[in-house]
């Protein structure tokens, strides 16, 4: 930004909500001299500072890029509505927190795609950042706009806006991507040629190098490269060894409070449980654990560099980490003196972890959240959530005995094959949790009284899951079911939360959308949609209007069951897990048959042919009894 813009910004900051979000300068933020590097990367998170700063992926890549002497990475977040409006009024571009550079001054602009309902924010950020929204309108001096993250596995819904997608583990491909763009820019290559070179990298998808045709019924007819540089299928990138992979030893410590204000230790990536609704569980395969040695080294470095008073362990299913009790013990021993508490956000509560629970409590007691997902055993078997009611009740009883008094239960409604009995089951389960509390003698349980919060989100079928072909419940059905659930959960000590079903409907449309969804997102943004995941800004009517503007129907994207022979928009992406395996799993779901955790023996999901899964030959739990699936999210 120039001096005048800077002065206007300083003035403007005095008039907006929570200005501390826009100032940067945090401990461990990295400010490099722009003249000293050959490539600049503007890392964008398409939501506000307090959400984005809680995200681990951004911290990993920020650290990784800034480790390079030839490159720099600076952060940009979605300004809140008041700030965005005032920036437009005052003609201030979207700027990075470190050097206050306008977004369009970066060589590379990268978005991490965490949830579909942040997509209008991408358009808003590009526009505020003075970058043409459509890739085709960008000139030679505009940045190359790239994106990655879990939602990049179906990149088609953003194909018009993003020049290149990175599919799979970002830390595996980032250096190559930067090298190609840096070299291309320095050699004076055209934008198109740089994109061609990017398409040659494994795991990179350049949508402009592919053509799409549709059938009359709106389904996909063909999808094919229009350039020899573009591969037919794009294979996801995989970090083979997590212990030797880059992990931040220092992360920016915000001044203002953010959602997850603590240091995070990613103990493993991937999950072997195979819940059929879970996209992350399929996308992040295979399971890779970080070694204890490396974790303790990282924990020490993070603790010293951040001064955080709290550490959390992160993975899809921390309870499955082979050395979890040893790790927790080691961390507790290390940090007792320094008053650093260790919290376990996702845990399996069985006999081993009960011991850890008691230890957690020594330092700090965090809330207990469990995710049975469905109300009956039948439906839990359909979704392959290997949890029994017995597991759940034993877990909460253990927790109540350790002094817990409030429990959050997460459920989904609208799962395939769901009946009224399954909804009633949610009520029964909540009641049994309350009863479990009262089954404990008064002097042993907490004096606060029990409080059970049951949350029911609306099931959204996601690409690369066995349910990717499934229909979502219509809004009408969802509303009826929510009304019933309200009845079933009218229980003493039980509180019921439900989610905005309209938001889930749009999420379903976008997540399985094709390229035409780009036009809908653009139309929605034009109609003033942004910050959609913030209820106070969500404009459902405008979204419906946007669908109408484009002559498209939500029913086609959300309510329609796809036949197996339909060409899916994301089918050109090779996520490792094969379509054949997903189909087999979907059929097993219909027959209410479960599939065991693959640590008991390889189920042949597809990744076994990649040579990246350590457990294909030596399943660690082979011959052992099955353990309960993780109860927590």
């Amino acid at each position, binding site marked *: 930004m120039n001096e005048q813009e800077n002065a206007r910004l300083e*003035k403007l*900051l*005095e008039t907006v909500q929570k*200005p*501390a979000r826009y*100032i*940067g*300068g*945090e*401990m461990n*933020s990295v400010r490099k001299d722009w003249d000293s590097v050959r490539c600049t990367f503007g890392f964008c998170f398409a939501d506000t500072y307090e959400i984005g700063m809680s995200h681990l992926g951004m911290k990993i890549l920020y650290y990784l890029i800034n480790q390079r002497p030839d490159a720099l990475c600076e952060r940009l977040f979605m300004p809140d509505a008041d700030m965005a409006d005032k920036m437009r009024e005052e003609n201030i571009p979207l700027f990075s927190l470190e050097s206050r550079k306008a977004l369009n001054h970066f060589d590379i602009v990268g978005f991490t795609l965490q949830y579909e309902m942040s997509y209008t924010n991408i358009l808003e950020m590009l526009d505020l950042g003075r970058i043409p929204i459509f890739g085709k309108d960008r000139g030679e001096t505009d940045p190359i706009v790239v994106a990655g993250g879990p939602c990049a596995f179906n990149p088609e819904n953003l194909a018009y806006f993003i020049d290149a997608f990175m599919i799979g583990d970002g830390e595996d491909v980032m250096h190559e991507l930067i090298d190609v763009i840096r070299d291309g820019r320095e050699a004076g290559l055209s934008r198109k040629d740089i994109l061609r070179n990017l398409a040659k990298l494994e795991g990179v998808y350049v949508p402009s190098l592919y053509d799409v045709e549709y059938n009359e019924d709106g389904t996909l007819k063909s999808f094919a490269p229009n350039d020899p540089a573009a591969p037919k299928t794009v294979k996801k990138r995989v970090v083979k060894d997590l212990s030797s992979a880059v992990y931040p030893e220092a992360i920016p*410590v915000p*001044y*203002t*409070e953010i959602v997850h204000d603590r240091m995070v230790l990613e103990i493993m990536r991937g999950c072997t449980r195979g819940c059929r609704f879970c996209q992350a569980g399929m996308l992040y395969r295979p399971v890779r654990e970080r070694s204890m040695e490396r974790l303790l080294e990282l924990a020490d470095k993070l603790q*010293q*560099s*951040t*001064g*955080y*008073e709290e550490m959390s362990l992160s993975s899809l299913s921390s309870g499955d980490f082979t050395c979890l009790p040893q790790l927790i013990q080691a961390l507790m021993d290390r940090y007792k003196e*320094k*008053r650093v508490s260790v919290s376990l956000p996702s845990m399996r509560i069985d006999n081993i972890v009960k011991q850890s629970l008691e230890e957690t409590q020594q330092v*700090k007691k965090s809330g207990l959240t469990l995710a049975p997902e469905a109300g009956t055993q039948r439906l839990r078997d359909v979704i392959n959530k290997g949890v029994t009611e017995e597991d759940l009740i034993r877990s909460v009883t253990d927790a109540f005995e350790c002094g817990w008094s409030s429990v959050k239960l997460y459920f989904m409604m609208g799962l395939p094959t769901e009946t009224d009995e399954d909804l009633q089951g949610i009520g029964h389960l909540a009641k049994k949790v309350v009863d479990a509390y009262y089954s404990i003698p008064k002097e042993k349980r907490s004096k606060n009284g029990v409080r059970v919060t049951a949350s029911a989100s609306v099931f959204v079928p996601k690409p690369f899951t066995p349910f990717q072909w499934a229909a979502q419940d219509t809004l009408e059905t969802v509303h009826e079911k929510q009304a019933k659930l309200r009845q079933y959960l009218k229980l003493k000590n039980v509180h019921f939360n439900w989610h905005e079903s309209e938001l889930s409907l749009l999420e379903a449309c976008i997540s399985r959308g094709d390229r035409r969804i780009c036009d809908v997102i653009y139309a929605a943004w034009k109609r003033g949609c942004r910050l959609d995941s913030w209820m106070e800004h969500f404009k459902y009517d405008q979204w419906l209007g946007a669908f109408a503007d484009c002559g498209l129907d939500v029913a086609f994207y959300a309510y329609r069951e796809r036949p197996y022979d339909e060409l899916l928009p994301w089918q050109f992406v090779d996520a490792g897990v094969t379509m054949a395996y997903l189909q087999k799993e979907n059929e097993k779901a219909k027959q209410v048959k479960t599939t065991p955790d693959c640590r008991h023996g390889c189920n042949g999901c597809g990744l076994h042919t990649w040579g990246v899964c350590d457990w294909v030959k030596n399943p660690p739990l082979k011959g052992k009894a099955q353990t309960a699936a993780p109860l927590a999210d």
Partner: protein
Amino acid sequence: MKMIVVFEKAPRLRHIGHLDLMRAMQRALRRSGLPLRYSQGFNPHILLTFAAPLSVGMPGKREVMEVPIEGEMTGEAFLTKLSAALPPDLPVLSAVPVDDRHPAPMALLTAAVYQAELETVPENFGEMVEKYLAQKEIPAVRKTKTGMKPCDLRPMIYGLTLKGNTLTMVLALCESATCKPDLLLSSLFEFAGTERPRALITRTQLLGEKDGALVPLESL
């Protein structure tokens, strides 16, 4: 023992509130590896007291805090360790060890110096300032916890000088009487009969009393 520490809250951080600044300082102290003292109780926190909270929007040039530590160490050693753990916009300027029985800076605080950088200065404003000060009584209404209360600002003003665009104000800041710079500016411009311009106010020094004179708080 405890350390009396002087630090700066640079203009970049002016939008950080008091509690956020406390937390940032506590985290810096944790990073420093200094022998800190913790509170008792279920959620122990680092013992640390600021002499006076700084409002959101206001930078501070020489803010004072008290940090109790275990054992003995020199101010220089403390300063070196803490400096290494602080971000550039939050530098520490000095540290002086004192006995645990030494009164808390908060208890010694009498007044503070503020500098307001006025965006525009009305004509003959210097004269206005003098006339304003010449009043025997300056009635104003200040916001307190229990509502709006009438008060007299004059005894709470120790000094008021204009130099170029900078208005330097020395105002009472203690438990019994506090005049916020914002209130003074409003009162002054109302007296002058002109619209109050935008102003960036910085607290430049905290003051205590010694032998009837105001001296830097950290020197006591």
